[in-house]
């Protein structure tokens, strides 16, 4: 049962695009050259606007969605959402098939060429075990990123959400609404960069009708593994994980967000 929902609440207006979060994450997680678990996107300035062209910088990473399509796309159960609401990848189960990568509307996943498994933000569990914040949050110069359990009303993240509940927004792809747990205070930009989730047809059918237990049994059957393994060996190294086929404008959701059914449970100390 869900006992927490870790999330990021981001005041993107504070972001100065310094990339401290990007480098901090790369060091903490040993991400190979050319890949990153997080990013900062920038809006297009309007140079026709006189003295106010303005650029908005928007930090992002895996959004640990409430309805993660990547989980549905994973044939082995390696990608799953844990009891803290964190979408995890069990590297021992991941066979590197790559199905989850286009299934993420945010392009938050990539195939790690060293580990030969899927890779993305996992909120730095080792650091949290040491009582530290995720690397990107800890290092941020302007403290634009705030991390915490939004089911725990005492957490900074929950308090910030509550404080700004009337104008908090999410970046959502209209065709693949995964209910992301990354919340931006007030407006944010850009918002037109997500893409529609792409699911392998067989997986889509299966996950639509079959319960997860069966899905995993199929996924881990000898045949399934062989097929996926073959695909992995043939796929070589992904040189990019940046899919960019847009599908229309995304939705800004203005809403009074509250987390889950407000189970007041004890959670990890931050």
């Amino acid at each position: 049962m869900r006992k927490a929902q870790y999330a990021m609440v981001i005041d993107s207006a504070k972001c100065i695009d310094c990339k401290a979060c990007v480098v901090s994450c790369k060091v903490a997680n040993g991400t190979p050259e050319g890949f990153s678990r997080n990013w900062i996107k920038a809006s297009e300035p309007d140079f026709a606007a006189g003295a106010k062209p303005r650029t908005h910088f928007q930090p992002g990473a895996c959004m640990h969605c409430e309805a993660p399509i990547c989980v549905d796309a994973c044939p082995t159960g390696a990608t799953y959402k844990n009891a803290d609401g964190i979408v995890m990848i069990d590297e021992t189960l991941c066979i590197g098939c790559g199905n989850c990568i286009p299934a993420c509307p945010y392009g938050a996943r990539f195939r790690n060429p060293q580990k030969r498994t899927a890779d993305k933000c996992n909120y730095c569990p080792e650091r949290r075990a040491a009582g530290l914040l995720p690397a990107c949050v800890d290092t941020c110069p302007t403290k634009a990123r705030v991390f915490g359990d939004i089911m725990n009303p005492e957490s900074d993240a929950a308090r910030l959400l509550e404080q700004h509940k009337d104008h908090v927004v999410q970046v959502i792809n209209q065709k693949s609404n995964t209910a992301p747990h990354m919340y931006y205070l007030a407006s944010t930009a850009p918002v037109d960069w997500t893409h529609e989730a792409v699911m392998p047809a067989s997986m889509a059918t299966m996950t639509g009708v079959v319960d997860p237990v069966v899905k995993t049994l199929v996924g881990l059957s000898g045949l399934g593994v062989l097929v996926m393994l073959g695909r992995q060996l043939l796929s070589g190294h992904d040189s990019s994980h940046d899919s960019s086929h847009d599908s229309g404008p995304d939705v800004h959701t203005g809403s009074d967000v509250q987390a889950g059914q407000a189970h007041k449970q004890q959670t990890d100390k931050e």
Partner: protein
Amino acid sequence: MSEGRELKISRRSFFKATGLAAAASLSGGTVLGGLAPQACAAVAAPEWESHFSACDMCFNKCGLVARVQQGRVVKLDPNPKFSKSRGMLCARGNAGVAQLYDPDRLKYPLLRAGKRGEGKWKRIPWDEALAMTAEKMQEIRTKYTPCGYLFSAGADMQSAFVSRFAEVFGSFNVTSHESLCLISNNRAYLDTFGEVPFADVINSKYVLMVGANRFEALVTPDSMDLMTAMREKGCKLVVLDPRYTKTAALADEWHPIRPGTDMAFMLAVINVIISEKLYDAEWMAEKTFGLDQLAGHVSQYTPAWAAAECGIPADDIVRIAREMAAAAPQSMIYPGRRTSDYEDSTQIRRSFAIANALLANWDRPGGLLAARAVGLKGVPYDPPWYDDNPPDRVDAGLVPMMFEHEGSFVLTRDAVLKGEPYPLKGWFVYKTNPMATAPNRAKTIAMAEQMDFTVVVDIAMTDTAHMADLVLPAPSYLERLDPASGLQGSSACACVVVRDPVVNALYESRPVFDILKDVAGRLDLGEYFDFTIEEYRTRQFAELPDAMEALRRDGVYYNPSKVYGLYEGKAHKTLSQKIELFNQRYADMGLDPMPVYTAPAKVPNNQFRLVVGRNAYFTHGSTQNNALLHELMPENTLWLHPDAAQTLGIADGELVEVASSVGRGELKASLTKGIRTDTVYMLTGFGAISPGLTRIHNVGASISALLDDKVDAISGNAALHTTFVTVTRKVAS
């Protein structure tokens, strides 16, 4: 920018949309025993040891915590107790690990084995290297007097030992990085307020930034505090810059001012504040000197006149002046740091300082702060006297107000090339890289060529090391024991930091202190270095009994000294003992006592003014080759306005040749409306000559190869914005 649709939805439909209600059924946890991921498995905390230190990827010395696992630094985190940096570590700070473990690091002493600059080296043992250094220094000292040896050290916690060595060795010729950076700013504020101020950004309601780029060229705590003031306290930020920097991108207003006309803008602001009597008359009468002269002087500098000079509408100039005055004393013209731009750079900054004085913001919250007490003691020494020495530095007397201990690198270099007033034949360089940072690289190469013996102590084969006779490997900041350093973080703190080695020094690297101590011993100067760094620290802490304990506990010692009102009843260090709007000393020396505007040279047809700037990844020329930072920006490009590019037939990303009166370079063009049509820009530190910088060797273009070498007439600071360049499309060969 496409606008996403704002959806106002009820709470119930929100939960429906986000599937929160159905949360449990969606989480694809599996139940296959041994193969199932352990949803609640507690991940073990890393088995690391944590050590405090101070970052050295730039000059800010932010507090950090190094996580060390099995003798290896695995992560650098911010020290949350370090208020100067507001508990943060920037991209460079995080990339310190890649500096420490960079395969490009110097590993052992290297002696030149080919022609100078050919890149051929022979590994030699330390003892031979040190003996040779002492022997060559003695040779040059005997032949050309002790002043025949030049010492150049960058900003570092051990650089004071280089100055100390130079002085006991007998040489007046010491240059620092400062004369390529901020001495004109320091000069101007010293000659206005009697000291160089700190900006109390966090308490300011209105910040005018002229050419400063605080959201990219990070200064702690100012960069963080500016955002805090803007987001949480409604502080207004107005930026004047020919380039659309990230600071401009986040500002309330950006005005792409014509380069070199900042003083015109400021004189008009002063004109408005005085003519409309928007100043605190009582405060001005009590604290300042020369208001009447100033009023007469600026009457000619009207907003309409300034508008024609700067390309900023007169209405905006008047409005900004009024807004700043209305927010005073919690408003400021941000002093900035790198002010090496024009030949009247000191006078330009004098106009900023005077405008600040009119806002009555000196020594008050939200204004400009005086230096607070930190409490470290100096460790004095009594250098010997050398009868055979010439009377002064080699660059003495060329400009009226040079800083004795910084010198002027550009003027020193000219003197070296001329051999006048006397020859300089030896060069000791520690952690500074004038080949990449000083303008007119061809002259720096010529300077290196004519040295009899150059030693460079650094962590990598920089372009300056590449031109040396002997290169000695230094440890990085994470492997060193450093003396204490006192810092002020604006109104946040006055504090002390130290560095203890976080890991053992790699390879055969040795700190510059050990090198100097050894060489001093060989030159019969051992008495001036008869201490260890620990002993030196103990003397520094003579009056701070609690400091050592605090440093062990928190990684920082704070002195709870007074922040505001330091000048109540205190005289300013100026002739009038007040804030000098009219500088009497300048008048006595025949300099303009108040800033007089000279229009910058017109940009010739089909040419552009080349301007210098920073981003958040690179410190001068020292971090471009860092693997993690290089990944963020693998090469530099030339910023060019699309209209100008169209005239020249240049498309985005095409290779162009940039040429000035002193050099040329090739790099790709980046077309952007974020730069004026008459201006181009490129980042420093690329186009390295040295093959030892494997990632940036011959990558992009070197700005130092293009910039001409004029100087500020008062301080001798380099003037880096006086260069015009042509830009031509390179036909792919």
